[in-house]
C-alpha cells in the first residue's frame, strides 16, 4: 500500500467501487496495489495471471475476468462475488439491485464458469469440458461421458438435457455456497 498506489486511484473511484461492491476503503487500496503488481509487463494483467495458477481450472477463472474488461473496476467487481455475506448487511436498506455477493450472484458466477457461450444453459459438452479439466487425463471419455450424463440427469427437470440456471440453483440448494465461495479479505 504505497503512496504511489493511492495517487493513481482517485477518491471518487474508490467511492464508486465501494458502493458497488461493498468493500471497505482499506480493502480497496490493498487490492489495488495487488492489481498493479499483477499488471506489470507487456502482457498486462491477463498474461501475468495465466502463469500463476497451476491447475487448468484456475485458468477458467482468468477467463471469467475477461468478461469485465480487465481493468481495476472489473477486477473488483469479480472479487466482490467472493465477499463473505455478513449479517449486518441484511439490516441496511436494501440496495436497488442485489449486492454482488448474494447467493444468487455467487451461483451465477459459478454458472458462468461452465457456460462459456453464455446461452444460459450448461450443455453436455460444456460440462464435459469442465469435467475434463477437473478430473485429469487418466479417465476415459466414456466414463467421463457417463458422469456428465448422470450430472445432467440429476439436475435436469424439464428434460432438455441441459442445465439451466434455475436447475443449477436447485441442485446446489443443499450446499452451503455462501460459506464456500467466500474469502476473508484482510482489512
Amino acid at each position, binding site marked *: 500500500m504505497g503512496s504511489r498506489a493511492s495517487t493513481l486511484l482517485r477518491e471518487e473511484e474508490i467511492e464508486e467501487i465501494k458502493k458497488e461492491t461493498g468493500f471497505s476503503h482499506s480493502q480497496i487500496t490493498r487490492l489495488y496495489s495487488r492489481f498493479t503488481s499483477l499488471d506489470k509487463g507487456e502482457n498486462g494483467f491477463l498474461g501475468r495471471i495465466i502463469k500463476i495458477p497451476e491447475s487448468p*481450472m484456475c485458468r477458467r477463472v482468468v477467463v471469467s475476468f475477461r468478461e469485465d474488461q480487465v481493468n481495476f473496476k472489473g477486477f473488483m467487481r469479480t472479487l466482490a462475488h467472493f465477499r463473505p455475506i455478513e449479517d449486518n448487511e441484511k439490516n441496511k436498506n436494501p440496495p436497488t439491485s442485489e449486492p454482488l455477493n448474494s447467493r444468487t450472484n455467487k451461483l451465477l458466477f459459478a454458472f458462468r464458469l461452465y457456460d462459456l457461450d453464455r446461452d444460459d444453459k450448461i450443455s453436455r459438452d460444456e460440462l464435459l469440458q469442465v469435467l475434463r479439466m477437473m478430473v485429469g487425463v487418466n479417465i476415459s471419455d466414456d466414463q467421463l461421458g457417463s458422469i456428465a450424463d448422470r450430472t445432467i440427469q440429476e439436475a435436469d427437470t424439464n428434460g432438455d438435457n441441459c442445465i439451466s440456471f434455475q436447475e443449477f440453483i436447485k441442485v446446489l440448494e443443499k450446499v452451503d455456497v455462501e460459506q464456500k465461495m467466500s474469502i476473508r*479479505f484482510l482489512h
Partner: protein
Amino acid sequence: MAALWPFPLLISESLWACLALTLPDGYPEPHNGPPTAGFNYSHVDPSVDLPSALRVFSLDYHHVQAPFEIVLWIMLASLAKLGFHWSGRVPAIVPESCVLIMVGLLVGGVIYGVRHSAPPTLSADAFFLFLLPPIVLDAGYFLPGRLFFENLGTILWYAVLGTLWNVLGIGLSLYGVCLLAPSSLGDISLLHCLLFGSLIAAVDPVAVLSVFQEMHVNEQLHILVFGESLLNDAVTVVGTGAAVLYKLFESFLRLPSVTGLDVLVGGCRVVVVGLGGLFVGLFFGLVAALTSRFTFRAQVIAPLFVFLYSYLSYLTSEMLHFSGIVAIVTCAVTMKQYVEANVSERSNTSIQYFLKMWSSVSETLIFIFLGVSTIQDIHMWSWPFVCSTLLLCLVWRATGVLLLTAVVNKLRRNAVTFRDQFIIAYGGLRGAICFSLVFLIDDFPKKRLFITTTIVVILFTVFVQGMTIKPLVELLDVKRKKRALPTVSEEIHSRLLDHLLSGIEDVVGYWGQHYWKDRFEQFNKKYLRRFLIGEHHQTHSSILRVYQEVERREQQGVEETPPVVDAHSSSRPLLPEEMDSIRRILSRNLQNFNNKQMPAYSRHTLHQDLTTDKMRKPLHRHQSLTERCTYHTITYCPQRVDGEFSKSCRGRARLSRSHTVCSASPRWSERPDSLVPAALNHTQPSDPGPAEEEPDSPQRRTQIERATKKQLSFILENEKPL
C-alpha cells in the same frame, strides 16, 4: 409393549453373569455342583479317591478363570447394550453411557454385596493399553478428513490453549480453595493441585463421542468438540508428565514459584509430545499404506495390517512418552485413503466392521467399569473440595471457550456462534481417561479424595450434562446436521467451487486453506499415490470415486429389494425395464445409504443413517432410534438363492476395487435386470470387447434416462404420504 419381552431374558442372563463374576478367586465352592455325580477337583489328591481313574464330570474353574472372567465381563457389557436398545423409550432420554454406568453401579453393588470386598477396578494399564486404542482408532478412521483439516487451526487452538487455560485455572483455584480451608485440605500442595487440574481439565473423547453421536449437531460443531477432545491428550500427557518434571525442578531449585525455565520446558514438551505423536503416526500410516499395496495376493489378512500398524503406532508413541492418541489418529487418517484404494471391497467392509465392533465393546466396557469402580471402600469425601472442583470445571471451561472463540472468530471464515460456543463449553465431558490417570498418581494422604472427586466429576458430567445436552440442543435450536444424500452433481460443483476459490486466492495473493489444500493434493497425486497405491488400483479423482460409489450403491439396491416392491408397483402397467428401475428406486428409498462424506461416528451403525424425509424405513419406532438401528450394515453379498438375483449376487461377489480399472471403458452390462451399467461393468472380470457393445449403448442410454426420470417422479410420489 411387545418389544419388552427380551428384557427378562437379558436380565436373567446378566444376573447370571454377575453371579459368576462374584465367584471368589481360587477354588470353586464345594456346594456348587451336584454331590452325587462323579465330581472331582483337579487339585484334590487323586490317591484319596476311588480307584476308577476316569471321572464322569469334573469342574476346573481355576484353569480357565482369567479368560472366563474377561469373557463374562464383555458378555455382560454387550447384553447390557442390547438391553438398552430393546428398552422402549429409554434411549431417547438417557444416553447410552449413563445407562451403562448405572448397570456398572448395579453390578458393582451386587459384587460388593456378595463378596464384601471391593469389586475389581479398572486398572490404568488395561485401560490405556487395551480399551482406549480401539475407540480412538475407530474415531480416527472415520474422521471426516476435509472438515477436520479445514477447522484444524481452531481445533488446535481449543485443544492446546484451552486445555492449558483450564489446567492452570482449575489448579490454581483449587490451591486457593485448599488454602482457604487449611483444616481439612491443608496438606494438598500446589503441585498436587496442578496435577489434579491437569487430569481433570481434559475433555474425554470417549464420553464426548458417545453423547454427541446421538445428537446430530452440525458437523462443524461436532468436529470442533471432538477434535479438541482428541488432541488435548497431548497436553494431558504433558500435564501429568510435567508434574513429574516440576517435582524434579522443585527439589532441584528449592523454589516455591514457577521459573521461566519451567514454563519454557513445559511448553517445549507439549510441542514435542504432540509432534512426536504426529510423526510416529505418519510413519506407521505410510508403512501400512505401503504394505497394503502388496496384499492383493493374500486378501484375507489385509484388515489385520490396519489394526496391527495402528496399534503399533500407539504403543510406540506411548513407549516414547509421546501422545498415543495423536499417533493413532494420525496413523488412521494417513493410511485410510491408500488402504481403501488398495484392498478389496470385502476387506474394507471387514475393517470397518471390526473397528466398529471393537470400539463398541471397548466403550461399553469402559463405562461399565466406571460404574463398577465407583463402588469402593476407599472413598474420602470433602464437601468444599468436591463442590469447588465441579464449579471450577464448569466456570473455567465456559470462560475459556468464550475468550478463545472471541479471538479465533476474527480469523475464521465461518464464525462460531454463541449457541455453538455454549454447546462446546457444555459438551466438555470428562470420562474414563481422567479416572485412569488419577490412579496413576503417586500415593499421598489425600489421594483418595482425588479419586472420589474425579468420580464425582465424571458422573456429574456424564449424567447431568449428558442427559440435558440433547434437550438443550433442541431448545437452543442449534444448527443441526444436514442430512443430504450426495449426488454426483453436488460433488462436481463443490469441486468446481474449490478450484475456483484456489484460483481466486491465487489472484488475490491470499494463502488460504484452499491454496494449501491444492498444494497437498498435487503432492499427493504426484508422489504419494503413485508410490503407495498399486498400479491397478489407481483411481485418480474423487469425482470418479464418488460416481463409482453411487453407482455401486445403486447396484446394491438391486439386491436388497425383492419382497417390498411388488405392493407398490401393482398399480401401473409396466415394462420389464421399468419394473427394475422401480425396484431400484424403491429400494433406494427404503434403504439407507452410506454417505462417504458423512462421519460414521455411530457405534451402532456402520452406515450412518441419513434419512432424508423421503427415505423412511418401515421399522422406525422412534425418531431417536433412527440413527441407531443397525440396519443392513453388511450389504455385501446376501445369501440369496433367488433366481433372478443370483446373477447380480455373483456379480457383486466379484466386485472388488482391483477391477475398477480406470482405463477400461465402461461396459454396458448384458444382464436384462440391471440398468446400471457402469458399476456392474466394473465387476465383470471377463470383459467382452467394447466393440460389440457399441450398438447397445444408445438403447441403454435411453433406458437410463427413462429410468432416472422415473426415479425422480417416484421420489416425488413417495414423498406424499410422509
